[in-house]
């Protein structure tokens, strides 16, 4: 590892932290702009002005916004995300289990989706403009075009109701055996895979096709390499930066965009937690979840940037 690379990586990480701080300001400001406040939400429509004022005092809602922001940020940095208004539970503790569940689901969806998308992309390039390519592109596009809830219900209808292979409701609990857990997430993981597959596959195909015009691809063909090896050995390594980028974007989606799928399958993850508490107007929870999502999104993008930097031989091996 040489210094220009380390410098670039350090820059990216610093930029990520700055970005995360900016996002925290936005999240905080956003929840302030929303009409009504927590005290109102807790006490309901019939609250008397006195009880509202008392509760506001008690919750510190009368302090200026920036003081509340720094108070909140200080808590976040030390791992204290506050207490949920609706249930009185510690948010950090509830999030821990749910984040773990979401990551578990996202991980297995990614394990299937990423290699599958890249291999399908490679095959599509190999048989470009032929019927194989068109079939792959068409199916992938169709699976993306259907909304997730539609795919989810179709899966439930066939696999849970009709054939009864997998459970329609993905209940998981702590200490659940691995096998059962896998069976529980089979359907939501499949739904997620189908949703993200096409984007990654088509970007892989486009990135490699872009490289296929290069003179070095012709060189490889003129060495007598087979069409698939030309793509695998010579085109793919040079298309890796854009592919990493789209893969990371989709991984981020798997973690932060699973709201609908989690709700359909009643899966106890972050998405469902967020939806539940948005309906309850539980501002501290919404803020905390928003911040966690932002952190995940930004970290994955930093990883994508670093991946692209490391994949570039000019940066890896300077003159």
């Amino acid at each position, binding site marked *: 590892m040489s210094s220009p690379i380390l410098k670039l990586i350090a820059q990216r990480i610093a930029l990520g932290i700055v970005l995360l701080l900016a996002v925290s300001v936005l999240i905080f400001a956003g929840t302030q702009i929303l009409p009504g406040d927590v005290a109102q939400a807790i006490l309901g429509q019939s609250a008397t002005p006195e009880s509202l004022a008392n509760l506001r005092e008690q919750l510190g809602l009368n302090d200026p916004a920036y003081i509340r922001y720094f108070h909140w940020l200080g808590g976040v940095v030390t791992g204290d995300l506050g207490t949920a208004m609706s249930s009185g539970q510690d948010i950090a503790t509830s999030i821990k289990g749910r984040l773990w569940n979401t990551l578990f689901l996202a991980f297995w969806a990614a394990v299937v989706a990423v290699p599958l998308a890249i291999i399908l992309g490679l095959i599509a390039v190999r048989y470009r403009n032929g019927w194989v390519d068109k079939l792959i592109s068409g199916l992938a596009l169709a699976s993306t075009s259907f909304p997730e809830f539609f795919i989810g219900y179709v899966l439930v209808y066939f696999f849970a109701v009709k054939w009864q292979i997998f459970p329609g409701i993905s209940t998981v609990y702590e200490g659940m055996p691995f096998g059962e857990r896998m069976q529980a997430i089979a359907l939501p993981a499949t739904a997620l895979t189908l949703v993200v597959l096409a984007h990654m596959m088509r970007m892989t195909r486009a990135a490699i096709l872009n490289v296929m015009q290069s*003179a070095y691809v012709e060189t490889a*063909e003129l060495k007598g390499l087979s069409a698939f090896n030309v793509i695998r050995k010579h085109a793919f390594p040079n298309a890796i930066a854009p592919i990493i980028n789209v893969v990371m974007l989709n991984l981020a989606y798997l973690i932060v965009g699973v709201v609908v799928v989690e709700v359909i399958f009643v899966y106890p993850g972050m998405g469902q937690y967020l939806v539940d508490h948005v309906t309850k107007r539980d501002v501290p929870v919404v803020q905390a979840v928003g911040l966690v999502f932002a952190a995940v999104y930004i970290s994955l993008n930093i990883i994508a940037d670093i991946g692209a930097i490391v994949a570039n031989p000019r940066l890896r091996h300077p*003159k």
Partner: protein
Amino acid sequence: MADTKAKPGQPKQGLLLDIRNLRIEATVYPPGETPKNIVLVHDVSLTLEKGKVLGLIGESGAGKSTIGLSSMGYGRGGVRITGGEVILNGRDILKGGKEGFRKLRGREVCYVAQSAAAAFNPAHRLMDQVVEATLLHGTATRAEAEKRAVALFKKLSLPNPETIGERFPHQVSGGQLQRVMTAMALCSEPDLIVFDEPTTALDVTTQIDVLAAIKDAIRDTHVAALYITHDLAVVAQVSDEIMVLRHGRLVEWGGTRQIIKEPRQEYTNALVSVHEIEHLEQKPGATPFLSVKNVTAAYGGSHIKVLKNVSVDIYPGQTLAVVGESGSGKSTLARAITGLLPPEEGTVTFDGRPLANRLADRPKEDLRQLQMIYQMADVAMNPRQTVGTIIGRPLEFYFGMRGRERDKRVAELLDEIEMGKGFLDRYPAELSGGQKQRVCIARSLAAKPKLIICDEVTSALDPLVANGILKLLLNLQQHEKVAYLFITHDLATVKSIADSIAVMYRGEVVRYGPKSKVLTPPFDAYTDLLLSSVPEMEIGWLEKAIKGRRMASAGN
């Protein structure tokens, strides 16, 4: 004569390649019309003995590369071989199908591309790429192949032959890469190598080294070669025979000596005598209208100075040629004069008053007086505008001409560049390379400037077309009294057009004066190297030139 592979190191004999009545077609898709078939190569036949070198020469579109690649059964970009036979080592390879092509590519026939910098995969180390074909075809183990590669690196006089293979392509210079590519082609010990303009993209001082290395390697390994180029002087150094092609048809085929000394066809004769434009040097006038004084410049505040203390003068109606290899600062000088790159030190004076350093600070009138023409005419024009609009634009911008007055002037300009009114409504894509460059010339003339900066304006053109452009520029200079700052790396062009010459090397002017003085000995070491590196159409020139050199070229 099925595969009688002689031991390496011994001359081989017999017929290697026999192309009979080769016909190659492609489908073109003109915008707005139905796709149509065009024939690129019309019934061309050739034979090549083992260990011999045949030069294929012609302008772009002559079908040289297409014929060369047909020996590997390869059609670039949808080109199809639709007739004839390609008999290699006694069998018709066109009957072998895809599998057959794959077996011969990289084993019996190898390819050396014009731009090695683009032809090497940036993601892999050189050694992995050099031995790839050998390993693929299973003709040697990895250890043997690498040993062979190192020996070839040595033969091609590459620096650090033991370790250069560990480098990535971007860590090696262009001239070196071209030799590594030659080593890559030789590594699998093929019977035939197709060299496709292997030195065209290189500086003239580097070209000579690469050419000598290729020639030695061909001689020592007894490999046969098809050597494709548009430069007759280059091909005369390496070939046993030369085939002249034009528009996909055979013009003339004969021994090297016969082609360059006694050409039988008129077209061959035109190619041989292409550079001979007589241009009498004009004496510098009393006062220059543009003076560059002690200009120093760098890009982006970098500490590396691209121009170091450069001073030159340009006289009204005369041509100053700036020569040097790539990276010597020629184009940067043009950018400093036009204000695109404000100099850090020094001044540019015009008609006795200093010009503002920055382009943005110059009045319109100063902008009008300095016009530019570029190397790549096709990217210097808006593809969505017609020729009439392109040439009319400076008339509107500088002189506020409108309507009929403008159209009349555009028509006059079209006449001046010998193109005529028929081109008014054409788009750049419908023009040939030479015509595009003519339109760019007309556009710069439209501003009635005192100086036109010509940045490698003929480098991308075929020799005969380039010659036409040079003659046009000289004619226009006589009529319009315009001065040129002519940037080029081609010394033959300089002789044809310059009144005075500045030789640049690593950001400095190393020799400057009237053409007759600059080109008369005694020379400084660099000018000597530059002049002695220009290929001459003479058999044995290469060996003489290499022997007589006083200074090694930098870019190899």
